[in-house]
């Protein structure tokens, strides 16, 4: 059995996709996506979507890292087992700064990577878009717009016709196989 996922249209250049994306947005579609071999400059604004939220994860990671660094140095060298070394204080903000600094960067980097995965809902190996026969070409040199059935404006006839109007080639219905 198959469930209809959406309608796809391909484009041959970044410019034609860029122009078409603007028209799809103006038409009022909400549940749609562009598939491109490269990050197309300015496409976010053209699709009407805002800034990525990855920096929040980076900041959270960085703050956690800095505090973790302070905590381990204080706990290990000043609280749990204080040792006098070289007449230096048990805890200071200054001498172990390299440790805080490195852990800030380490945790921020993990926050960034996992934040990116989380926001992109990855890993996910079974997306319906993979059923499109020439999906692979979107990594190579083709551009694609997919409007999902979920969209409130989706119509079995009007939506494919609209995609053709805005310059889309080889209009294909994507079906999701369900066992």
């Amino acid at each position, binding site marked *: 059995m198959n469930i209809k996922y959406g309608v796809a249209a391909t484009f041959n250049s970044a410019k034609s996709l860029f122009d078409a994306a603007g028209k799809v947005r103006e038409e009022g579609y909400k549940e749609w996506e562009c*598939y491109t*071999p*490269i*990050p*197309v400059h300015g496409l976010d604004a053209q699709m009407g979507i805002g800034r990525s939220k*990855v920096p929040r994860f*980076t900041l959270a990671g960085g703050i956690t890292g800095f505090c973790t660094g302070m905590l381990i140095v204080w706990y290990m060298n000043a609280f749990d087992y204080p040792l006098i070394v070289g007449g230096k204080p048990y805890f200071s903000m200054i001498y172990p700064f390299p440790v805080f600094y490195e852990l800030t960067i380490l945790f921020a980097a993990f926050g960034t990577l996992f934040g990116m995965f989380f926001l992109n809902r*990855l890993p996910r*190996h079974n997306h319906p878009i993979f059923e499109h026969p020439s999906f692979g070409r979107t990594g190579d040199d083709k551009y694609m717009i997919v409007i999902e059935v979920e969209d409130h404006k989706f119509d079995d006839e009007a939506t494919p016709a609209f995609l053709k109007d805005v310059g889309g080639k080889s209009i294909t219905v994507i079906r999701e196989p369900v066992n």
Partner: protein
Amino acid sequence: MSSKVTDQSDVISPELMNKVKPAKWEEVPLVLNNRSFHWVTEKICGIVEQKTPTWWWWCFITALSIASFTGLGLVYLVSTGVGVWGNNNPVNWGWAIVNFVFWIGIGHAGTLISAVLCLLKQKWRTSINRASEAMTVFAVICAGIFPLFHVGRVWFAWWLFPIPNANAIWPQFRSPLEWDVFAVSTYATVSILFWYMGMIPDLAIIRDRAKETWRKYFYGVLAMGWRNANNHWRNFEMAYLLLAGLSTPLVLSVHTIVSFDFAVANLPGWHTTIFPPYFVAGAIFSGFGMVLTLLLPLRAIFRLHDLITEKHIHNMCKIILATGSMVGYAYAMEFFIAWYGANSYEGFAFINRAFGNYWWAYWIMVSCNVICPQLFWFKGIINNIPLVWIISIFVNIGMWFERFVIANTTLSRDFLPSSWGYYSPTVVDLFTFFGTFGFFSVLFLLFIRFLPLMPMAEVKSVMPAADPHGGKH
């Protein structure tokens, strides 16, 4: 070579243009011969999809045999004791620290290319960044071997990390060597994360082209289900920029902290404030030397002349020239300060460095690091690819000797003449270090065989077809 000449005549009035007579700016494209996106995909994927070439097997077997020297050296060391190395009193650091700093320094160029040049919007970085990042990761792995085994009882090396152990003693955070543990392990981890994340879209392309089942699973799992969606790219680009922003202070801090191993010690010749910037410049210098050593043969073997153009090679030569000059300036400044500081121990350390027991190492260092890169002022030399390759190897030799000179001249002539000594490596030292080149090559050969050599999306992004406004900005 096709190039386009741009002027502003279409936006600025002709009368004004006639009055100002601006110079024509010749823009050399980053991908030559007007290649298409599809050509880039075929070229890069073709390298991993083709049948394993015979030369690859020969290189791999040779590299593996060379790597076995490290294996043998380390097995002998662990089963016998650290006494099999040439380290002695007063030269307790020996080759272990020299090799460590050498390899970690090489890694720095990869991060510089991927992070610093990304922030500076240097578009030419796109075709060389992946291989350089791989170089970083593998160089850091090679670097890690030396301090790990230098601790003596390597099975207790985990005591370096803040993990509870049976002795109930924690790491000692007042020591720069402990800072180094954090700096180097963070550097290794973040470099791997950055390298892997950048590779995800390319792994997805190989996954989508894969015919064999193992290939579908191998690249499928690594690609994490990436699907080229604009939403993916949006978060990916932001994450990439942030990782570049995080790696930039990281790469500067790592060699700074490595230099603290020396600079925080109260020894003449080490205890200087010039060390952090001088080490960072030297690291970038040696790293670019290694990038050229690796990429020039790859460019010839895989015929990547349209992607790694003469412009790329010239730019790398210029960076080597700039950082080489900084290193030369630092050498001169060290001498000046030793004299100007009027500290007799410091003065002795530097006279001894240039004319003492290791004078030969000092002059090898100066000829390779100060004189060699100055040849890159000449157009005839930077256009001669084999010569550039040979000079890049001299840069690496010179930078190894720099670390040897810094570590050994100071330690072998310490404060008490009665404890002075002369350090020479043993055959075990030689084996272990020689083998790391094989180990590095094994990893690098596996990289070029199984992973995408260049970030395809990034290379495509600097091509004219990537512009959504059809060339009219």
